């Protein structure tokens, strides 16, 4: 390749000149196309957290109950009686903007697999949603209605079928999300304290087994796509969107839990963005070992796939397991029993590289730690001008409504306040029979069968507040979640978050990100609720500008006696009504 074509190639893959030079320096040679593809997906914002990693270090992560903080597939906190919950939130904003049903469905599927990768049984889903205004006849409103309808159908279509109850969430409408909806899904899983897994490959000679679906050309370069701004052009990248299959996911869950119960796995990792590449390189980097993948051993759905396509395919409903060689037959019998693909596709090696082989020949090899260590960008935090230009509002100068009753009814009917039952009635909130408090309350309450213990969970976000006052809004988001849990009678213990922001390369976006993180951190420190997992979704911008900075907080609380919880609603005539606080 001459220099110009090389530049075109890496640019098309989403790598900058600086990043390409860094690759040359690290490798000490020019990478081939496959190797370049590996870098491009692993160094995307989505996988590499290039813009946010330095800022995320600010979050407090430690606490008495924390068994696993950030850095694994999900955070884990202890509940009591030897039980723990694993939880995490993740965004699927871009895929949902383009193909709302499948985007939302695969979002739910992806976060469920993150929880499964910890060894936990997924027991609850929540969905935090943002859309543009849906009222009126404009094409925009009708598009927003379509997005709302299909996203909700997608979450339900996946969650209901896979048998994980959707027990809470939010729906908020604001013009800043028009054309860029937010779809954040959170999953909570239940696990015995001693069974918590890490995604760490160990043991030279151990086998790498792919479990789940066949691999197709789904979402090739999806991770790069997720880190792009939405534009006309992204419409043409539509073939990137994956289709979910909750039926197979259900079998993947049952199969993996059975494999763990039988003690057949060394390690487990889900295949999310960047497919085998990210799972294998992360497992290798964490374990300080190498992994060899034989792409011709990967069962394919489509013929003629190139090794690089196999490596970065984002086909859903797949997990990667590390097993000891003598467990091979037992593992494959079980995958077969659950009707799944089970294929030995590689092995753990001592060379520290992610090495790709095809028909016995090495077609690419990169030290796993390089892939796992994307360059990060720290920028100057500059206070944006818009904050000084915000109009001052004096609440005392607002006119009093003529009729308070009418004003109240109007408020209650407004999209952001009115009941969301039309949404959550499309979700099975009770399957698994652990749901003690269903949607419609401040938080969901779940029991842990066989114990008196339970946990409560809620999600909250305050985009407009964060726009007007990023730090204060970040703090208030945590406080709101904390109040929701307190009201229901739970002791809040830890937080997961999903940071939905605009372009961090623009000063406004970076400032908002940094300040919201500061605000969240201050609140979490004060309340003793560490951040144990999270996800970042940047570049949420359309031609019309950025969304409101919208960090979503998912908070988990514990109840020592789950029967002692409060529910909404006045219970008896004559009871007293008391206001607590300021």
């Amino acid at each position: 390749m001459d220099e110009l074509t090389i530049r075109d190639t890496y640019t098309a893959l989403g790598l900058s000149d600086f990043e390409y030079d860094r690759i040359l320096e690290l490798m000490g040679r020019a990478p081939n196309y496959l190797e370049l593809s590996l870098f491009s997906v692993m160094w995307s914002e989505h996988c590499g957290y290039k813009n946010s990693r330095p800022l995320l270090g600010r979050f407090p992560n430690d606490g008495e109950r924390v068994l696993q903080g950030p850095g694994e597939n999900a955070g884990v906190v202890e509940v009591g009686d030897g039980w723990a919950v694993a939880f995490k939130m993740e965004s699927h904003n871009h895929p949902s903007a383009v193909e709302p049903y499948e985007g939302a469905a695969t979002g739910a599927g992806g976060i469920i697999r993150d929880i499964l990768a910890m060894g936990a049984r997924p027991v609850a889903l929540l969905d935090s949603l943002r859309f543009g205004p849906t009222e009126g006849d404009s094409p925009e409103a009708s598009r927003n209605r379509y997005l709302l309808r299909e996203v909700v159908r997608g979450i339900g279509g996946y969650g209901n079928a896979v048998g994980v109850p959707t027990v809470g969430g939010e729906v908020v409408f604001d013009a800043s999300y028009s054309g860029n909806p937010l779809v954040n899904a959170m999953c909570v899983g239940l696990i015995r304290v001693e069974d918590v897994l890490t995604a760490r490959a160990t043991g030279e000679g151990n086998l790498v087994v792919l479990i789940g679906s066949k691999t197709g050309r789904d979402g090739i370069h999806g991770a790069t796509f997720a880190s792009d701004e939405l534009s006309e052009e992204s419409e043409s990248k539509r073939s990137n969107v994956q289709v979910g299959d909750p039926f197979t996911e259900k079998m993947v869950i049952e199969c993996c839990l059975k494999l763990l119960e039988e003690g057949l796995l060394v390690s487990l990792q889900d295949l999310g963005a960047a497919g085998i590449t990210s799972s294998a390189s992360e497992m290798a980097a964490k374990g300080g070992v190498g992994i060899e993948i034989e792409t011709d051993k990967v069962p394919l759905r489509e013929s003629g796939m190139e090794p690089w396509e196999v490596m970065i395919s984002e086909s859903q409903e797949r997990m990667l397991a590390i097993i000891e060689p003598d467990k091979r037959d037992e593992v494959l019998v079980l995958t077969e029993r659950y009707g799944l693909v089970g294929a030995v596709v590689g092995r753990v090696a001592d060379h520290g590289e992610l090495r790709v082989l095809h028909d016995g020949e090495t077609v690419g090899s990169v030290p796993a730690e390089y892939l796992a260590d994307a360059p990060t960008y720290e920028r100057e935090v500059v206070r944006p001008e818009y904050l000084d230009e915000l109009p001052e509002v004096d609440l005392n100068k607002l006119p009093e409504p003529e009729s308070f009753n009418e004003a109240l009814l109007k408020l209650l009917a407004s999209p952001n306040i009115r009941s969301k039952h039309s949404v959550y009635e499309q979700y099975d909130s009770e399957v698994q029979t652990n749901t003690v408090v269903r949607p419609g309350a401040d938080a969901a309450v779940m029991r842990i069968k066989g114990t008196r213990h339970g946990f409560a969970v809620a999600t909250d976000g305050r985009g407009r507040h964060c726009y007007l006052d990023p730090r204060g809004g970040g703090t208030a988001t945590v406080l709101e979640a904390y109040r929701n849990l307190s009201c229901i009678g739970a002791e809040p213990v830890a937080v997961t978050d999903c940071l939905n922001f605009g372009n961090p390369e623009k000063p406004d976006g970076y400032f908002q990100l940094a300040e919201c993180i500061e605000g969240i951190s201050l609140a979490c420190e004060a309340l003793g609720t560490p951040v144990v997992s999270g996800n970042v979704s940047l570049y949420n911008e359309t031609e019309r500008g950025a969304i409101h900075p919208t960090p979503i907080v998912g908070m988990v609380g514990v109840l020592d006696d789950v029967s002692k919880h409060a529910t909404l609603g006045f219970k008896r005539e004559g009871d007293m009504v008391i206001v607590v606080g300021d």
Partner: protein
Amino acid sequence: MTLRVGITVFPGSNCDRDAMHAVALTGAEPVELWHADADLKGVDAVIVPGGFSYGDYLRPGAIARFANVMGEVERFAREGGPVLGVCNGFQVLAEAHLLPGALLQNTSLRFVSRRVPCRVERTDTPWTAACEAGETLTLPVAHNEGNYFADERTLARLEDEGRVVLRYLENPNGSANDIAGVCSEGRNVVGIMPHPERVSDPDLGSEAGLKIISSVLVGAGV
């Protein structure tokens, strides 16, 4: 003697564990019946639980009815054994022609998950014997295809023969005659859309469904 209640497990069943939990609460012994095994393990009754067997692909229940275990369930049913289909289980039994009619998509075209008051119309089935005739049970529904359909003649016959076992007081899905559950001619096979196993545990605030799950113990004289 402990009554043994078999619960079928198809790929995609997702209320199987819930049904087992509820059965255990009645004092009976739950027994897992794996779809691929043509073996009922000598159980005294069978529950075909809810979920999305085979992903509900093609039509809910259409593929599950051909699972190996279903041949045995059909034989057991023909011999008069008590069989209860819940939600997807009802769909499976209808597809297998163990129950008349079919379950079409909800008229709202949406999945519906809510609590619905239902009237127990008949107590002369093994799955309603512990209920009182005419009593109202508030039961959860959670389905996309629960809209009961049968042709006019079949409907008239079901009503005449007292085979509508459970009726919605607030129809959530467009079902003909507000039908929430029916039974076979022999009355031993019952299919219902609501989920009794979800309201069978005092820890979850209601035991309305335990009456249905435990009815089979009454019939067996346990």
